[in-house]
């Protein structure tokens, strides 16, 4: 047999068969999608139908999850991942990728097509007006609708993830955490703050991921909002200079990237079916380093210009115009990279494209993790059988096996500490650890020889 021939067959009826619960669940979710479409094309605008939308989405998703996992034993559930169209870059994956990309393009650049209007919203955005009014007293914006759908995705697919990994306490706790931070900190509190006419603020969204934190309008807004605004300003700065480095020292960047962050939250829940699509090639690692540090540089430069402009009122520095740089960053990084490519391409490039190649916050945390953190993934002596499950299911494209098979600790700036490598390992080889670093083995491969563990090279 030629080794390059892929052994997998296009699909297996057995692994993709749907039971009655799953079929009903999918039907209900389809109903929700139809309602969204009808709303988008202005065919329906009724709070009652909005309630139907929520009920059928939640019920459909829960029913599907239950049908999928209820009759399975607790344990790893990757059967058929490489055969299913949606998770192996098949037709369904491409359709989904195009649809998500289109949605992001509309959100960022053509919100009026979604129904956003100054006077009265129509279409999809108008459809969600009642919820927005309930939460913050205003009509919905495209970002409100996005927030609702985003939060729904994290909660419902988070429940699916928890069901899938119910045997693994780390996965369960981590997922409850991202669900909480998305629902309460990223969605409810900011909306309620908006309703109270206070500055919209997501307390966990830190600079430089929150790249507008130091923009003049944002600073002015905070300074004009009394003691609450002052608190947000101080909290925002403290997060960057104190809270984040301390937490990263003790726990690694995972405290943020796979426990708190909204982008991470979506990747870990909605993106779970696509985690194995990340490239593990050394060449991809090279691209990753160039891109992510370039974005970080861009973010720092832009912020420096913005702050300089704030204090001096001068927007021109050498050949750079502060306002132009800010505009470029917003367009290329804030919208195109993190949104369109980051999520739109989930089914094709995997769920962590933004986190791996673009996020400036991940870049900073990564540098801290690599050089000033206790966090590492330890490998268990000589038990590794090089099967490749760890590398395959690493959403960040780390070739975990490369380290595991030589007994070396894994300390990589990109690792978000999701713990899935450890979960899928069939030989109990990997463990996420952040105890005192006396056992950190970075010096070189450890070989089990003559009954001893020795560092070689």
């Amino acid at each position, binding site marked *: 047999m030629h080794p390059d021939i892929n*052994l997998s067959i296009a699909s297996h009826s057995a692994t993709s068969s749907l039971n009655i619960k799953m079929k009903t669940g999918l039907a209900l979710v389809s109903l929700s999608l139809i309602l969204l479409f009808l709303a988008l094309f202005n065919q329906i605008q009724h709070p009652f139908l909005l309630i139907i939308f929520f009920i059928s989405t939640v019920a459909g998703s829960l029913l599907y999850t239950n049908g999928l996992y209820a009759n399975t034993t607790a344990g790893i559930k990757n*059967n058929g991942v*490489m055969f299913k169209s949606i998770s192996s870059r098949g037709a369904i994956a491409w359709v989904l990728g195009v649809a998500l990309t289109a949605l992001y393009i509309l959100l960022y650049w053509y919100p009026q097509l979604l129904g956003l209007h100054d006077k009265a919203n129509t279409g999809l955005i108008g459809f969600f007006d009642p919820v927005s009014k309930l939460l913050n007293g205003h009509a919905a914006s495209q970002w409100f609708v996005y927030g609702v759908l985003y939060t729904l995705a994290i909660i419902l697919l988070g429940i699916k993830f928890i069901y899938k990994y119910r045997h693994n306490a780390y996965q369960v706790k981590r997922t409850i955490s991202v669900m909480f931070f998305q629902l309460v900190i990223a969605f409810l509190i900011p909306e309620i703050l908006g309703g109270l006419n206070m500055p919209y603020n997501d307390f966990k969204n830190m600079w430089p991921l929150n790249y507008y934190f130091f923009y003049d309008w944002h600073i002015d807004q905070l300074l004009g909002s009394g003691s609450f605004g002052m608190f947000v300003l101080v909290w925002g700065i403290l997060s960057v200079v104190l809270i984040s480095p301390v937490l990263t020292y003790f726990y690694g960047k995972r405290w943020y990237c796979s426990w708190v962050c909204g982008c991470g939250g979506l990747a870990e829940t909605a993106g779970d079916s696509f985690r194995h699509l990340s490239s593990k090639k050394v060449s991809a690692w090279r691209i990753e380093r160039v891109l992510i540090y370039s974005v970080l540089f861009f973010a720092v430069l832009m912020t420096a210009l913005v702050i300089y402009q704030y204090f001096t009122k001068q927007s021109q520095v050498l050949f750079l115009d502060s306002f132009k740089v800010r505009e470029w960053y917003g367009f290329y990084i804030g919208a195109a990279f993190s949104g369109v490519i980051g999520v739109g391409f989930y089914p094709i490039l995997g769920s962590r494209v933004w986190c791996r190649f673009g996020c400036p916050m991940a870049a900073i945390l990564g540098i801290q993790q690599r050089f000033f953190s206790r966090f590492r993934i330890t490998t268990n002596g000589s*038990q590794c059988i*090089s*099967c*490749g499950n760890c590398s395959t299911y690493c959403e960040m494209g780390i070739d975990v096996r490369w380290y595991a098979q030589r007994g070396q600790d894994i300390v990589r700036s990109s690792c978000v500490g999701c713990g899935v490598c*450890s979960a899928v390992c069939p030989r109990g080889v990997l463990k996420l650890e952040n105890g005192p670093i006396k056992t950190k083995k970075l010096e070189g491969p450890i070989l*089990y020889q003559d009954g001893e*563990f020795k560092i070689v090279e």
Partner: protein
Amino acid sequence: MAPKVVIIGNGISGITCARHLRKLSNYDITVISAESKYFFSRTALMYIYMGHMKEEHTRPYENHFWEQNRIGLLQKKVATVHPHENYILLESGEQIRYDYLVLATGSRSNKFGWPGQDLKGVQGLYNLQDLETMEQYTSGIKHAAVVGGGLIGIETVEMLLSRNIHVHFLVRENSFWNLVMPPDESEMINKLIYHHQVDLRLGTELKEIKSDKEGRATAILTSKGDTIDCSFVALTVGVSPNIDFVKNSGIHTDRGIIVDDYLQTNFKNIFAIGDCAQFKTPLPGRKPIEQVWYTGKIQGETAARNIVGLEKKYNPGHWFNSAKFFDLEYQTYGLVPAQKDESTDWFWWQDKKGEKGLRLVWEKNTKIFKGLNAMGIRLRHEVCNQWLNNNTTIDIVVKELSKANFDPEFFKGYEKEFQRSFEVKYQYITV
């Protein structure tokens, strides 16, 4: 000119040998394999079938690695070895000269002369080609039989279940793997097999495989006289060294290729490593043929050292191993006998749900810790190894148990419960 090393077989042993040769020398290295051009992890075959991975995911090194490290790869079948003339002959007719030859040809699946064992849809599971035929013959079928209750057997069962195929599992012993495992551990696995609705038939052997007119398997006949309809039969009754092509070459063989402690055969420049090697004098407590991943690795490295003249005896250290039965992980460190003998004592603990189990074994007189079996629990290899190296007594091991915990964070601890039940039974040891 640099000496030329030819390695036959690109499994974990041959590849580890090649890699270490490259680290230690500038020798000219060629690895020959008929099975595949690139090294892949044989232990991951099951995951390809189950759809967890594709074949390329099971390759531990990217394809450019070999060229970068100047390790030549040749996908050819070797016909004969000519040790007196220092060359090998390929089936394609080509001759390849060598200064050193490393035989790392692995195993082949056992067949014990059953009627029908060569029918279509009857096979072992060892190599990529087996996986391909299994894919072909299990497509769309409803029933399959697996014969032989070892590790490959239970993995094959799991593979078939992933395609919703009903499996009839014939195990010669009265309890799964009880020649290796003590009764409690073995029983845990029996229960799992039943839980997965496998038709487990203990104490049952294969008599005959029946076929249709096209020569395709249709049913098996068991030693208990039952006929079971099935369109696929996996024969997983162990493996034997794959050495037919050297048998008349002058290289000494028995079940495997005979080697000394330096992995050297009766020819000074020919080495044999991994599944195909058989030790003239096995190390104490170890088998003459070791068919384990990590021993293949250690043997590959040892042979590499000996080839470049850094004399080194094979020394695998304390026995250890691991496996996964469905969702149940198993690790073992040191020696745990399947049956307790006079000189040893042991203690078995199991949690209430029956999902975790831990057995400690020690020498009765000296109370020195000898080994352990962990079921559904991950333990730290280094700590267990240290206990064994230091002749630690059992009371200390029990006390220090949590030092060896390698379970993921937030997993429920079991140490206190274990210690409490241990103390109840063995107060004399702990006080």
